[in-house]
């Protein structure tokens, strides 16, 4: 008990550090607002000629983009928006359930060794660049998936979504959605897996002790615990899908329709891919128009996230 008499010196300061740290944390929070406002303002000012500029010139620009199909900004951007949302939602729909499945498989079903290996593969896949997805999608998947789409068109063609004939090569919304799904799958998986693994053992045991099967335990303890994480992960993934450029650009055969014919080519286009396709050859006014479409995408992301947030708030309240 020798150290009983040790005088423990009063701890050095720390108050300033505390204040500075807090200040920095605040500043970083605010910085997010500032950055976002800057991006918004930038988009807005660059897109300003659409509103404040010469409307005849705008209309000419738009028709030069569309070969005369559209002659004002809205009839240009709305189909693009439709395409963007369609592709992203499809991708999310495909990826969501599969991801949750894999995440659960890794966190609760697979033996430990396998789970570690799988986690590793998933993390790796999350990092595969979209150009590579584009390469793979355009060169490997497109020809490979045609027989499947053809089968779907022949057997499920009565559903408007799958109306045939399936395009060959299948540079279609359906194929792009699959590629995007594969692309965002690791994102959702990786994040949900981390969360699932953190489920308090107490709650898992509580469920099991009530005689819950493994699945019921997951339903009672794991999923509720992971819900907010899953939603965040999905939003992150949706954001990625909404803004994905290269993979869409390299695979999709674009069109400007409000069409849900997933298996046919030249039906829809996404905003991001459209910007990339048009930007290199666009003049000043063209760039303004493209940025205008970017602004719309930005606003849509805002709305989507807002709704998602409200929904989860209601669900958790």
């Amino acid at each position, binding site marked *: 008990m020798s150290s009983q008499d040790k005088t423990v010196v009063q701890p050095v300061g720390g108050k300033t550090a505390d204040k500075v740290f807090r200040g920095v944390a605040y500043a970083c929070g605010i910085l997010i607002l500032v950055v976002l406002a800057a991006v918004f303002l930038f988009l807005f000012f660059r897109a300003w000629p659409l509103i404040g500029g010469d409307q005849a010139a705008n209309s000419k620009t738009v028709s030069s983009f569309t070969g005369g199909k559209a002659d004002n900004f809205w009839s240009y951007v709305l189909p693009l928006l439709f395409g963007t949302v369609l592709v992203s939602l499809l991708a999310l729909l495909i990826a969501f359930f599969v991801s949750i499945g894999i995440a659960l498989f890794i966190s609760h079903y697979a033996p430990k060794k396998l789970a570690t290996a799988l986690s590793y593969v998933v993390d790796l896949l999350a990092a595969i660049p979209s150009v590579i997805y584009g390469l793979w999608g355009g060169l490997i998947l497109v020809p490979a998936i045609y027989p499947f789409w053809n089968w779907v068109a022949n057997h499920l063609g009565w559903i408007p979504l799958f109306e045939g004939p399936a*395009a060959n090569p299948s540079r279609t919304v359906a194929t792009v959605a699959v590629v995007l799904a594969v692309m965002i799958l690791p994102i959702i998986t990786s994040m949900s897996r981390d969360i699932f693994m953190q489920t308090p053992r107490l709650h898992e045991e509580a469920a099991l002790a009530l005689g819950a099967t493994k699945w019921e335990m997951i339903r009672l303890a794991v999923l509720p615990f992971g819900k907010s994480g899953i939603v965040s992960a999905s939003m992150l993934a949706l954001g990625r899908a909404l803004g994905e450029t290269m993979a869409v650009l390299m695979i*999709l055969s674009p069109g400007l329709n409000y069409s849900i014919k997933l298996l046919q080519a030249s039906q829809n286009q996404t905003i991001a891919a459209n910007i990339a396709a048009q930007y290199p050859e666009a003049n000043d006014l063209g760039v303004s128009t493209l940025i205008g479409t970017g602004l719309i995408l930005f606003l849509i992301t805002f709305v989507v996230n807002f709704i998602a947030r409200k929904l989860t708030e209601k669900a958790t309240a």
Partner: protein
Amino acid sequence: ACGDNSAAKTDNNASSDSTAKAAPVSGDFQGAGASSQQAAVEAWIAGFQGSNPDAKIAYNPSGSGAGVQTFLTGATAWAGSDKALADNEVEQSKSVCASGSAFDVPVYISPIAVVFNLKGVSDAGKHINMDAATIAKIFDGKITKWNDPAIAEQNKDLKLPDTDITVVHRSDKSGTTQNFVSYFKDVTPDNWNYDLSENWPNEVGQGAKGTSGVISTVKQADGTIGYADFSQVGDLGTVAVKVGEKYNVISAKAGSKVIEDSKQDTTVTGDNRVVIKINHATKADGAYPIVLVSYDVVCPAYKDAKQAEFAKAWLTYVTSDEGQKAAQDAAGTAPLPASLKTKVAKSIEAIKTK
């Protein structure tokens, strides 16, 4: 710098002979523009550095439009473009160039192939004969079968299958597209009712990004047809296009011939500009009429004398026989016909280096 592939010795010798007249240029120089020029520019940079070892040159293949925009901010020494400058761009350039307005000169000619993939024809190495009207109708979705009488008539010796035609076009804004459809507008306007544009105007078939996208899409399915830069054709079939009474197969030489038979566009505004008005309706023997002319855009005077020196030396090299050969070898382009060279040389002379 680290990792550089030092130029081959033979190159060094060859270039030092022919460009001995000018003092070597040194410094950092940047260009940007048409992605289609990339392969040629790579060869030119390698060749140019052979005689100007202290010149560091970067070319950003960001696209013709973006390249010209960048040039108009003064950030680059030259721009590569698939099309001639627009009037307002010439006007804008006055604020960037030290004096006068920017001008463009052709740097090579590149034939545009109509490529197709059809079992029993393209894989047997055969061409299909078509006239302008047939091609236009196909690309407008009016002809949808490979054994359509319109095609069969022109190809009596081929056995054409009952396969659907899948048209493949560019999905991005492209000079290639504009040149391709301007052939229709000039030769068979009745069959092409769209405005001239760099964007593909209809929704027939499928769109693909870039020349590489078109080529790989065409390769992916039987019955496809598309258009692409000649150098990228590979083992796909190409359409022999009707000129006069003959069907001419694509080749660099055949592409040059149409330019020889074309006039300079004298309606353009601005000094020193050499813009070709392609005579798509040429009847010249052995000519292939669907071609694209690539330009370099420079200023007649630069605020920085070094830039001017470089621009002059660069264009001189590019349009020289040596430069044209380098591009032909590396990018499969057709050389500028002799008739153009003097005009081009005159414009280059206009660049003030002092």
